[in-house]
């Protein structure tokens, strides 16, 4: 930086000697204490770096030993203590009883929303909308394992087709690729689609009907409306977990995919599971 100090002719004041693109600055001296305050802030920052954890070195904590996470812990603890009376009441009740009490219901919906976002949204979506390919929507009115408060709570507690819980919901669909010819599978698919008025080939559907009654009706019910107690999904409605076109249905008949869900009983507090059941029930499809 050029430091040619000149005298400004108009004011008789020296310039600071600093020049930026031809702009020069008159030197109007600042009070000295101003400079000392600036030095004091530098000294303060140095002390601050030693006292508080501001050096990005792993394990360096600062002499005060202060850590944001540890400062948060007692606050979290205090919040939990504040929630505990409500949680204790929820723990002692069934989801239906919680939902019937306006105060508890509001608490459970708020708590269930958080627990859902933390634990369930990864598969079932942020709003419980699910995804094609085996992640059922929880916002609609079709329930593979039942949509009552108790059924939802049971499913959350024990999960589906997992090896860790003996009470897990389990159903098994055989792979019909080994038992039926491709033509038969196509006919069955046509019949299944015709149940929800999606069929295009009445003759094929007629042939498939017979095979359906022999092979499928036991779990999916003769009219295709499903058997929730056995986990046989409704095939006659407009909701398709693995896709509702003929190719998808045929693939599902030939080599079925079946989703799994972990048991949450050991992972989550019983009150949290009850709140989740209330929340999922209120997403829009809960049954009595």
């Amino acid at each position, binding site marked *: 930086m050029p430091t040619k100090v000149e*005298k400004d002719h108009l004011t008789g004041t020296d310039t600071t000697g600093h020049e930026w693109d031809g702009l020069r600055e008159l030197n109007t001296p600042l009070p*000295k204490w*101003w400079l000392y305050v600036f030095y004091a802030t530098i000294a303060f920052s140095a002390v601050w770096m030693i006292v508080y954890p501001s050096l990005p070195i792993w394990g360096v904590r600062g002499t005060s030993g202060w850590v944001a996470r540890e400062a948060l812990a007692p606050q979290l603890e205090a919040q939990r203590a504040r929630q505990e009376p409500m949680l204790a009441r929820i723990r002692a009740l069934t989801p239906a009883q919680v939902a019937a009490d306006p105060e508890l219901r509001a608490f459970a919906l708020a708590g269930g929303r958080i627990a859902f976002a933390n634990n369930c949204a990864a598969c079932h979506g942020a709003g419980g909308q699910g995804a094609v390919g085996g992640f059922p929507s929880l*916002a609609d009115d079709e329930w593979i394992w039942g949509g009552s408060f108790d059924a939802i709570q049971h499913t959350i507690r024990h999960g589906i087709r997992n090896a860790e819980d003996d009470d897990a919901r389990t159903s098994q669909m055989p792979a019909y690729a080994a038992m039926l010819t491709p033509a038969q599978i196509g006919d069955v698919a046509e019949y299944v689609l015709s149940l929800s008025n999606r069929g295009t080939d009445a003759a094929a559907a007629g042939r498939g009907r017979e095979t359906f009654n022999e092979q499928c009706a036991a779990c999916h019910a003769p009219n295709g409306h499903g058997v929730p107690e056995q986990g046989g999904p409704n095939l006659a409605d407009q909701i398709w977990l693995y896709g509702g076109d003929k190719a998808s249905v045929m693939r599902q008949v030939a080599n079925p995919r079946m989703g799994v869900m972990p048991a949450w009983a050991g992972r989550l507090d019983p009150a949290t599971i009850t709140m989740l059941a209330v929340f999922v029930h209120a997403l829009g499809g809960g049954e009595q």
Partner: protein
Amino acid sequence: MSKVETTERLKPPAASPPAASPAAPLYANRTKVYPRQVSGPVRRAKWAVLILCLGLYYTVPLIRWDRGPNLPDQAVLVDMTSARLFFFWIEIWPQEVYYLTGLLVLAAIGLFAATSLFGRVWCGFACPQTVWTDLFMWVERRIQGDRNARMRLDQHPWTREWLVKKAATHAAWLGIAMATGGAWIMYFNDALEMTPRFFTGGASPEVYFFFWMFTATTYLLAGWAREQVCTYMCPWPRFQAAMLDENSLVVTYRGWRGEPRGKAKADGVGDCVDCRACVNVCPTGIDIRDGQQLECIGCGLCIDACDDVMGRLGRERGLIAFETLANLARSEAAAKPLRPGPGRHACGMAARTPPRFLRPRTFVYAGVLGAVVAVMLGAWLLRDTLDLAVIRERAPLYVRLSDGAVRNAYALKLVNKTHEAERFALVLDGPRGLALLVQDAATDAEGRPLLATRPDGITQWRALVTAPAGLRLAESSPVTFRLVDPRTGRAVESTASVFLGPKP
């Protein structure tokens, strides 16, 4: 600026090469200012403004205003915990902070307008820095004496008298500063309820923090920093020149009349006797005779000081006056050929014209001011006390039900700014066939959901709107949620949203 003294101040270019002159330091010791006491109309106006401003500041929190049970009865209160701003009959919610923004815009434009008309009247009369500094200087003068006594006192520090007087001054300053900090927190807490808690140590740490913060800033800024705040810290002196023009009334030395300076009885000299009264009373320690300068806060105390001297000399007052630069130039041009004396003065004063207050600049400021006032007034008069916010749930965009129906969900927030709870029926306007259900809401005889409001609060609801299977709708259909007063049957509030479905 007076030509006479401008030419005097214009020094010829330095004879010695610049490199030879030692560079002035970038930092220097502050030269302490010892303003002398002064009396006169400007000083009286300043006292009046000071008493009004400080009187309001310290007493407004004590004004009571009955709002009914469970509501604060303090007229002016910023209630942080319940997120409300109370101002007499007005109650503002946090989302209505634009009324505050509007007030700040008004204050800024008003400041510009006042500056274009009367120069830095804000700085000189009403700025808190000026007002509190003025009060602190008054205290200082009462205890330590006037200018000469204070200078003498500071020449011999650490004497008994010095210690006693300084201690008394700082104690008084701290007392005022504490009252300032104490009054500040009363704007955020109920004054009558907070005062006993404050003195028994039962107030929150935030209250004590802000109390000490405003105590410290008042004490330091008004007691120690003083004119340095205006000269070095405040941005306003830097750009106020943009609001001033040659028709603004500013504190000015009439150089055409005062120069050349000389003894009162000398011959051929102007009216300025170089008594330095104007310099001695200046709170920022400058010489107004140097012309317009950044450090001048426009307080006009030099006018009182000079008028006093002129009066005693039997000369016309107004050697320093609130004067426009345009008039200054006119007087100067008229008086230039004349010799100093009463004739020159009469000629210069005769050349003046009345100040032009109606100028394009003031019209623009008045126009903007009027527009902002109109917008704010309109916004206030049309302010809704009932508001229905409809937030469409976007995950999922829509839900396909087992029978093929399509359902959308909406979060409804019912804001009630009155202090009475009411119930409204919710009606959905949109494509025929849409079914409306509000979770947890009772329904009236016609099957419409009834939404209850909370007094001075928000209630939340979740609405499910279903298009039955077979209803052919566009991908997006406009819908309107209407709140109907069940007694009158009239719609009191409506909010538009959309209903989404699959591509047809």
